[in-house]
């Protein structure tokens, strides 16, 4: 977290320059950045759980037991059952897969297209830059939920529409960051030198400029992930994304709302899962930012 005061943690240790074993060094490194480590561990755990959903769940997510609906947790079903008697734990594990996949797709799509746009507009400038800049401003002018509603209205509900909406909303951030980084760098000597020796433009962009961008981009990607997970669940909650009876956290929360009186736990678990995932992703993002880009606060759209 950006709050972790560097002063105390990095207090110079007046220890003799002894050779520490790599493992110990790694552990100390991780210990100092405990929030990043915890975040990474949580995300990894969730990914593993999602991958191994089939084994961990013990039963398929769509088998109905109409005689055992809305059962409380810690009975025969660890997290209880939903209104059709389906196992909540199983549905949550399979739901994790969908959420992780969709968010990854959205973020990568945004990162690739956004950076490409930013790099090229920053490098070439001119009319292309102005035009693209206008279009990005237009995209930026839309609150993401509205954009999602609009895209879903045209393409129909479903995960692909949601992925597209989130990617479109995250695009401007990547574009702006890469563009300003390019603008800062393009007048530098090494770029001019590369240009002078006749290196082709794509080579310049990819080999010389891009590596300087990796740090901020990684930070944006990890923060973008948190953003994507949150919005993917929100869209599904509104009925725009995954459709019932697909197991998905947002969808489960939407159904659980009608049973808040009889079965409050049904609404608790999927939401808690979203919270934990997003929290961990934010920890990771923040930790990476401290690592790679300590000076710069988030610019543009907040995660």
């Amino acid at each position, binding site marked *: 977290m950006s709050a972790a005061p560097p002063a105390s943690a990095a207090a110079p240790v007046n220890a003799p320059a002894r050779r520490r074993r790599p493992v110990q060094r790694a552990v100390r490194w991780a210990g100092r950045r405990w929030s990043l480590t915890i975040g990474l561990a949580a995300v990894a755990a969730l990914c593993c759980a999602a991958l191994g959903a089939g084994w961990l769940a013990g039963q398929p997510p769509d088998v*109905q037991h*109409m005689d055992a*609906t809305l059962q409380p947790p810690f009975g025969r079903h660890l997290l209880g059952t939903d209104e059709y008697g389906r196992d909540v734990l199983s549905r949550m594990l399979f739901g994790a897969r969908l959420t992780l996949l969709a968010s990854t797709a959205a973020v990568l799509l945004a990162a690739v297209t956004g950076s490409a746009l930013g790099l090229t507009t920053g490098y070439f400038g001119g009319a292309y830059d102005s035009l693209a800049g206008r279009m990005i401003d237009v995209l930026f002018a839309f609150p993401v939920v509205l954009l999602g509603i609009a895209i879903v209205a045209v393409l129909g*509900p479903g995960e692909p529409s949601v992925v597209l909406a989130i990617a479109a909303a995250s695009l401007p951030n990547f574009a702006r960051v890469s563009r300003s980084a390019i603008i800062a760098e393009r007048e530098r000597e090494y770029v001019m030198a590369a240009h002078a020796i006749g290196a082709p433009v794509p080579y310049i962009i990819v080999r010389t400029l891009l590596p300087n961008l990796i740090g901020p981009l990684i930070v944006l990607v990890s923060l973008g992930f948190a953003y994507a997970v949150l919005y993917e669940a929100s869209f599904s909650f509104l009925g725009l994304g995954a*459709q019932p*009876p697909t197991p998905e956290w947002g969808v489960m929360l939407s159904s659980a709302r009608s049973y808040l009186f009889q079965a409050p736990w049904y609404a608790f678990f999927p939401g808690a899962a979203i919270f934990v995932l997003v929290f961990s992703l934010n920890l990771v993002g923040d930790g990476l930012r401290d690592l790679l880009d300590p000076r710069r606060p988030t610019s543009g759209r907040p995660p």
Partner: protein
Amino acid sequence: MARSMTRRQLLRRTALTAAAAGLGAKGTAAWAAAAAPRRGGTLTISQSVDINTLHPWTGTLNVWKVIKTNVYDQLSYQDPLTLEFKPKLAKSFEWADNNTSLVVTLPSGVRFHNGEPLTAADVKFTLDSIRDPKVGSWLRGFIAPIMDVQVLDATHLKIKTDTIENQLVPAFAYVDIVPRSQGTDLSRKTPIGSGPYKFVEWIPNDHVTLQRAPSYWNEAGAGYVDRIVLRPVTELQTRISQLLAGDVDLVYDFSLIEVPRLRADRRIAVTVVPPVDQMFVMYLNGRKPPFNKLELRQAMGYALDREAFIKNFLAGQGRIDNSPFTPAHWAFDPRTEHAYTYDPDRAGQLLEKAGYPKGQGLTFSLLTPSGYPEFTQLSTMVQATFASLGYRPAIEEVDIGQWAARLNQSHDYFAAVDYPPRGSADPALTYSAGLFFPPVPANYNGLTPDEIPGYVDAVHRGATLQARPARKVAYFSVQEMWTQSLPGPIWCHRSTAHAALPSVKGFVPHAAFQQSFAGVWLA
């Protein structure tokens, strides 16, 4: 039908008046024994959705039916307690001319809310307009047997038909009489009727206001409360909160699943209409595979665990039936009682017989409209049954406009859940539209008469014979044929539930949404 008996006894005990106009002395006497109703006050009602049109002949939503029943007059009405159709605006109906004309006698001195007198000419205008295809009214099928309408004088009409048509008098309960000066383009105009309540305004997404008409031609049917305000609120929890807070006096038609919880709350009175009218059915498109095959349709009949559906999603407020009617109805055929049950194995065998062993090669989807959770729940259960048999159909959820268009116009669907009403009506009316009447284009299933030989004749006999025993025979045979060829499974009947504050008196819910509030008063 134990529940309805208890309810009737309860009603008589508390001596509430029968809601609709025309009961006169009988009602008031029974009721004068209890507290005397007061005039005045505003009755605030919460409904589940907003109306979407002001047109009395094309609007189909139940919430609109509830409103227009009070704003307009209809020639007949369905008694909420006995479920029989009786004259309302009409003083009498008589078959004459060797049973080829129905003579309707109207009272004199009836005025519309704009002062114009209501005469036979207005009734003729209304009937002729509904019969006009250009108007696009869904009621056209109900009064299709009418060949001509003649005005005899200001208070007498003669309706010419081919023979006796039993569906006409029940159908008139749905026909709202509009002044001929208003024309037929009514979707935006403020409704001008002759009912006990005047239409004041509609603020979309906010409320509809009705005001008691200064005078109503039937004293006994005039309203007590001065104003009725109807508010659309979709969220059930919100409607309940508003009721408990006193912002709303009556929550009309809410999700059955909340009935047990609300019944336990002493601050409100819950009335549940017995499951006699609305029925859950599934329309199957017989124009294309797979439901052009009889075995597949029958398999669908075995595919729903109705007991579990009623228990879990209707809070037990339903009745398993394979017939559009319930046992208390004279036309109910007891042989339908066990025609279909929940039997996935049997369904699996039928699939194999049809050429889809273990669901191989099977393709279909279930079409549901959004905003109707019970439809989605039913579809999800059916989906699970088929999934266990080897094929999982997708559930397509679309908005209600698209759903209706795909069902009615493009016939672009495989299977769709709906809950059509009129299970308590005269069978002639029940079988005159939509699901049940093969040759009409409005028939969702697309089955032609030769695919169910004898069906059309039997329906016609039931509609045109006078003697009840003969009609009963005809309708028994109709139900038998239906059960065998199953154009679409009839799953169960559904109750409707309403919740009100104790200060609301005289509320008698109507199973078919022909809800009159004229008898309601506020303590």
